[in-house]
């Protein structure tokens, strides 16, 4: 299982420590082009943010902002640059693809498989960029995303250099809003899916493993929930509990788990007959141990793939909810919200609706590319 053989010529650290000063250079010297250029580009991007946004960075340091958002951004910036350099130094020290411990081999095989899929790597890159941009929003956003100024003079401006994506009907900069919106939209996507897969995996594993009555009851619940009009639930819960990001997350999480449960159950059913599970039972292991240690780790691959694809789905659903007026609070700029703001005037101020829509498409595409890549990388049939 040697690593890319082409790199082995550079095995010993021929180049000096200085090579790591330029982040990514050690990788480039080892002909690991994607990693090298990726790191280089990220570093360049962060450096540019540092230089262009220096005033706000100083403000953060001076404690003027004091906002947690600012600190998150600052941490992202420093940790980001730090880790990129760290990676480069590490690469320098270890030589190319230094032998990883055996415990890693599972994941590194998957990782290698994943990096072979170019589109998936592009998707991952796109998501990394998006995440970085999201976290750095306070330094990148040229305007305050929620502040309403002198509306009349500043509203509905076409995209221009001042306002890359124009302004909306209340004169807010769409670009800044889209940047900040990414945070909420992504947070909703990730958290809702986290809830859904936790619940879905637990239920699916229990149903599949225990079978019989447990299975029958749990699966009937799943059937009901899948055939249940989600809209009814959303409207009722949002009305009962009010619009808030947390509510939307919880409701989405709670409505999305049944499909995960079904997938997991199916996997567990076939897993249950696998001989290592039988062996675990013969060895007297308790059910909880078998489920936790032997069943669930082995169904994670499809769950992870499903979860990845699900994140995109959640982002889409959230935007649909906002469209129906059931989304997050109005003062929270999510993509769905921003998009909805421009809806009535779509034919004239097309930019307000179009750009957040494109942001959604960008993100969902990236996530799906990753999901497809993961599917291939984690599929044991494709591995020897």
């Amino acid at each position, binding site marked *: 299982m040697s690593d*890319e*053989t*082409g790199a082995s010529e550079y095995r010993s650290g021929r180049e000096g420590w200085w090579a790591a000063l330029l982040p990514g250079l050690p990788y480039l010297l080892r002909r690991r082009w994607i990693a090298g250029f990726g790191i280089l580009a990220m570093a360049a991007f962060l450096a540019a943010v540092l230089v262009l946004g220096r005033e706000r960075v100083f403000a953060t340091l001076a404690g003027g902002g004091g906002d947690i958002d600012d600190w998150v951004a600052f941490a992202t910036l420093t940790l980001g640059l730090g880790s990129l350099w760290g990676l480069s130094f590490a690469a320098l020290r270890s030589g190319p693809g230094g032998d990883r411990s055996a415990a890693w081999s599972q994941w590194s095989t998957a990782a290698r498989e994943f990096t*072979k899929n170019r589109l998936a790597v592009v998707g991952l890159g796109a998501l990394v960029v998006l995440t970085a941009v999201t976290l750095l929003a306070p330094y990148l956003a040229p305007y305050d995303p929620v502040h309403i100024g002198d509306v009349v003079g500043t509203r509905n401006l076409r995209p221009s250099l001042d306002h890359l994506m124009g302004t909306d009907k209340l004169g807010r900069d769409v670009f800044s809003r889209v940047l900040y919106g990414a945070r909420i939209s992504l947070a909703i996507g990730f958290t809702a899916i986290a809830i859904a897969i936790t619940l879905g995996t637990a239920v699916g594993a229990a149903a599949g493993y225990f079978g019989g009555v447990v299975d029958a009851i749990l699966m009937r619940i799943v059937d009901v929930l899948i055939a249940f009009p989600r809209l009814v639930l959303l409207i009722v819960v949002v009305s009962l509990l009010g619009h808030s990001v947390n509510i939307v997350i919880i409701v989405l999480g709670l409505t999305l788990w049944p499909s995960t449960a079904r997938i997991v159950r199916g996997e567990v059913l076939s897993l249950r007959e696998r001989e290592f599970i039988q062996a675990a039972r013969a060895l007297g292991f308790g059910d909880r141990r078998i489920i936790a240690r032997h069943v669930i780790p082995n169904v994670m691959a499809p769950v992870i793939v499903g979860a990845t694809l699900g994140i995109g789905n959640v982002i889409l659903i959230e935007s649909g909810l906002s469209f129906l007026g059931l989304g997050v609070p109005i003062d929270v700029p999510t993509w769905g919200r921003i998009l909805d703001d421009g809806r009535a005037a779509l034919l004239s101020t097309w930019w307000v609706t179009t750009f957040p829509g494109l942001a959604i498409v960008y993100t969902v595409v990236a996530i799906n590319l990753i999901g497809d890549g993961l599917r291939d990388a984690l599929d044991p049939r494709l591995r020897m």
Partner: protein
Amino acid sequence: MSPPILTVEQLRTYIHRGEQTLRAVDGVSLSLHAGETLGIVGESGCGKSLTCLSIMGLIEEPVRIEPGSSIRLHDRELSELSLRELETIRGNEISMIFQEPMTSLNPVWTVGDQIAEPVRIHRRADAGEARARAIEMLELVGFPNPEERVDSYPHELSGGMQQRAMIAMALACEPAVLIADEPTTALDVTIQAEIIDLLADLQRRLGMAMIFVSHDLGVVSQIADRVAVMYAGQVVEEGDVGDMFRRPRHPYTEGLLRCLPRLDRKVARLPVIPGDVPSPRDWPGGCRFHPRCAYAWERCLSAAPALTGEEHLSRCWLEEEPERRVPSRAGEPGADS
């Protein structure tokens, strides 16, 4: 002896996976004469199936037949034919049956349709003729009431019957060569006996040549006229069946024969071939069998022997230095690990 129908020379079929090249079949030469059955034996992963598939031209990226290989059917060089031309030969002049009858039959078509298909393609028969031929073939392979069974789906048949249907399909166009890749491995012993019986019988009646692949030396010894033993992508020994099993020349064949538990006598402890079957990822250097060979000496580590001999060939330095046929390791044969 008349010229062989099928000649394989220096067949090398490699698998290109990223930067790796797996030399799964690495210089196999075989020849098959009319009416003859050539047995190929070898353990899992030694390249038996790939050899067969290469002959059929059924390999696909990332598996490739390397230049310099030659597969000749009568006088035609198969490895140079276009896909279109190959298609007219497959199932027509040369047919193949596979190990798993269950997965090798298309589950959504009736066996009749599947048997009739090569007839329709190669003989341009109409539906009625093809069906009649299918029934005829089913009868030939020993189906009870073939008129009815022609309309069954594969899952409605037992494993033995499925394999019979596969055979019927392969023989529908009366090919000159039949390649049977472990046709009985997935079957029970009693059924296996039936199928072998059937194949031997059909071969006699139809006069075709057959390559019979198996990892079971017993089975091969029953049906084959000549046997080629494969190890690590190469033929290591080839010869007449009786001769080979009575007097194996290659240490691998010898080891194989000795380590089989026997029905007719009981030994306290089985002699073993130490170590594991190597993987094509990294064949051992020198003689590929040397790490497991009881006789191996320096020469075996450094240089690869060639397949030598007249009627009975062997790929071993012992052919040149027969005096070394003395176990070199203490306690051999019989050591465990």
